[in-house]
């Protein structure tokens, strides 16, 4: 048991976990500060036209905004850690419940998106790197440059215009839960998934290409060739496998980025996920909901990065065995 705790992997993970918690604390502070940085009175702004002195007082004490700042923070942090993120300014629903209700839709979109991205970026990036300077490399690079330059909402609208409105193959918007209606889920997730995935693919292809290029010019690849190994073996065992380590990091970052980027795509496709929720909350100045969503997404972000770091330690023997 003692040797387990002394194991380098566990120590490494422990260090990363500690670091993540520190950042999480910072995130909490930032999320909390959102409400209090609003010039003017957040409660008044939220009520807007529904303002009455009674409603104002009620909402104000319900959200605890009449207490001293520090006390508010600790009470906020405390309840956040136990899962209670307050209630919405708009309809009084508990924030946590609302967020969890919308989470599956965003997660399924993000996963479909990253899978499409990997399916395109991995082969394209590897091919492009190994055939550097040839025409196919040029085509891949130009295409990915385009992909990175296209606004995702524009792509979404064009895709809808083509496949849904004109050809009528796919629905223009909406969502069907995976478990109750797999067929419907698939039909509805294709266009938004493609939108998210294609843009992510363009970004990732360039990073994969760079990672593979760097590995391909490493000294150990020349050693592998000097052994007279078949090109396929050199590529798979000595180039791609070594490039997987940085590719892992890239995938993690991209997945986390998608979590934020889905906002616009969800709005265009009327996808009932966290992104659309945040958008509506911002439009309505529903601060507790904004706070909660921001906190949740940032936490997911940190979690993904932590998992990537752990996988790193598992895959790279230099970290696993010091």
């Amino acid at each position: 048991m003692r040797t387990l705790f002394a194991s380098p992997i566990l120590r490494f993970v422990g260090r990363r976990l500690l670091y993540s918690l520190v950042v999480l604390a910072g995130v909490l502070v930032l999320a909390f500060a959102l409400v209090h940085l609003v010039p003017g009175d957040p409660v008044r702004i939220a009520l807007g036209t529904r303002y009455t002195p009674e409603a104002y007082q009620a909402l104000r004490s319900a959200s605890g905004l009449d207490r001293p700042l520090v006390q508010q923070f600790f009470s906020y942090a405390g309840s956040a850690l136990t899962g209670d993120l307050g209630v919405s300014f708009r309809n009084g629903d508990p924030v946590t419940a609302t967020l969890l209700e919308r989470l599956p839709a965003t997660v399924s979109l993000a996963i479909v998106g990253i899978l499409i991205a990997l399916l395109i970026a991995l082969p394209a990036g590897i091919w492009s790197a190994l055939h550097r300077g040839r025409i196919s490399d040029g085509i891949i690079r130009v295409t990915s440059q385009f992909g990175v330059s296209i606004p995702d909402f524009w792509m979404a609208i064009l895709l809808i215009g083509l496949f849904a409105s004109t050809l009528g193959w796919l629905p223009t918007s909406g969502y069907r839960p995976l478990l109750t209606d797999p067929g419907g889920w698939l039909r509805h997730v294709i266009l938004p998934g493609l939108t998210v995935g294609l843009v992510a693919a363009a970004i990732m292809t360039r990073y994969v290409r760079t990672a593979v290029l760097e590995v391909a010019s490493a000294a150990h690849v020349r050693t592998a060739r000097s052994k007279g190994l078949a090109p396929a073996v050199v590529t798979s065992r000595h180039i791609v496998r070594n490039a997987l380590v940085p590719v892992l990091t890239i995938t993690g970052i991209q997945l986390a980025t998608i979590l934020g980027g889905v906002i616009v795509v969800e709005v265009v496709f009327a996808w009932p996920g966290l992104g659309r929720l945040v958008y509506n909350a911002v439009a309505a100045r529903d601060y507790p909901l904004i706070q909660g969503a921001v906190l949740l997404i940032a936490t997911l972000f940190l979690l993904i990065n932590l998992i990537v770091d752990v996988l790193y330690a598992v895959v790279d023997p230099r970290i696993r065995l010091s």
Partner: protein
Amino acid sequence: MTGPVLSVRDLRVRIGRQEIVHGISFDVAPEQTLGIVGESGSGKSMTALAATGLLDIPGAVASGSSALGAVDDSHPTELIGASRRALRNVHGGRIGFVFQDPGTSLNPLLTVERQITESLEAHRDMTRRQARQRAVELAEAVGLPDPATRLGSYPHQLSGGQRQRVMIAIALACDPELLIADEPTTALDVTTQAQIVDLVGDLRRDFGTAVVWISHDLGLIGQVADDVAVLAAGELVEQAPVLEVFDSPRHPYTRQLLAARPLIGGGDPRPAPADAPVLLSVDGLDVRFDVTSPAGATTTVHAVKGVSFEVRRGSTLGLVGESGSGKSTVAGALTGLVAPDAGSAALGGVDMLMVRGAAEKALRRRVSLVLQDPFSALDPRARIGAAIGEPLQVHRLCKGKRARADRVAELLDVVGLPADFASRYPHELSGGQRQRVNIARALAVEPELVILDEATASLDVSVQARVLELLADLQRELGLTYLFISHDLAVIEQMSHQVLVMRSGSAVEYRPAAELFAAPEHPYTRALLAAVPAAQPRSS
């Protein structure tokens, strides 16, 4: 086999429009070692790679003929322009390769065993089990301690010497007829180098392999080669059996190369000025620092353990040690780059370690530092004149730009460089020229003490000889005091009046140079001296 193992005729290598290798021809006799020696830019690596079909630089084209002799003296295999398939059979199967840097030449993600069995599976059609068995045999043959367990390690868990042994095992796995060793010991310590040289010698006898050993070190080639080929600027300048090359060299370049070598016991160091006062006095210097591994674990390294010495004005103290001995840390402590944990150091009675503020600035004027790598010691975006002029500006030694420019021209002249170099950039200069610029910059403040940390280690042998001569002249003319740090004992002997030998942070032997080289006391010093390649080649 009676014919040559490798027969190269009129080999040329072209990159783009430039020809790098100009029509080289040589033979490698069976079971013999051919030493290819040349300085940087001679094209020795490129020749060997082109001759064996391993040239991987984009745009490089080889022409001419390179024939690999067949075991049964039948039709030889032409390697230039051979199909990739044919080359794959030859690489690893009939020709083995050992490259320079064992740290990066092995795949960090695969076990050592896997990297050996790969070859066997590819060429000898073995199953995993058979290959594993053979790998153990090979590991034993190359002297890897505890072979059965070591095979399961990853490269980063082995030392530099052990990794190079693994590379040799990989190269010899399929019992090739020819072994190409490209600077295999350049990145290793002198003692490890000696071990590897012995190992390759033994294996050559046991396996019956012919060897092509490429190096810039003529002394080393003298130890290992039967025949020597001297390359310069892509041309084959001289080729002869080793004894002939050393005893009666024909080409002037070979003679120049032989003469430029610093040798143990060759030449007396200039006499030290009699009864000079002590300039630098170091007492009980102790330095520790923390090192963080990639996993984030921190360990404390005790780099310098209570070292003491004195240097008299106008003389040179040679500080010698291998990598990890702490010699560079001593230099760091004396120049303020590293904070010592204990001990004291004084320059002419003035404390060097605790000074701050204006006193520190005044102290920095009196001590100069010249580092090993001439390129990275100069700001790539600053002109030479600006680099040399920086200390003049900082210490306000000249009145106005004009005066500064004049002084810079003076300094360039002192180190033997033309005055118009002041407007050039570092990348326009050669390694030797850049190092002269570094010396000029060090002299700009008219220092009393100059610390030279491996200042000639990255230079070609002939360039090194000229720079060492310059340093000796400057010491005589300007009365400079040197702390000369190096791993090269021959250079130390040539330059030093006193010698301090360091090992793992401790001072191991501290005596006048003549005494130390005549009769070394400490076993480590003796081991170091024994490991230096001899001046004369071994008789076959």
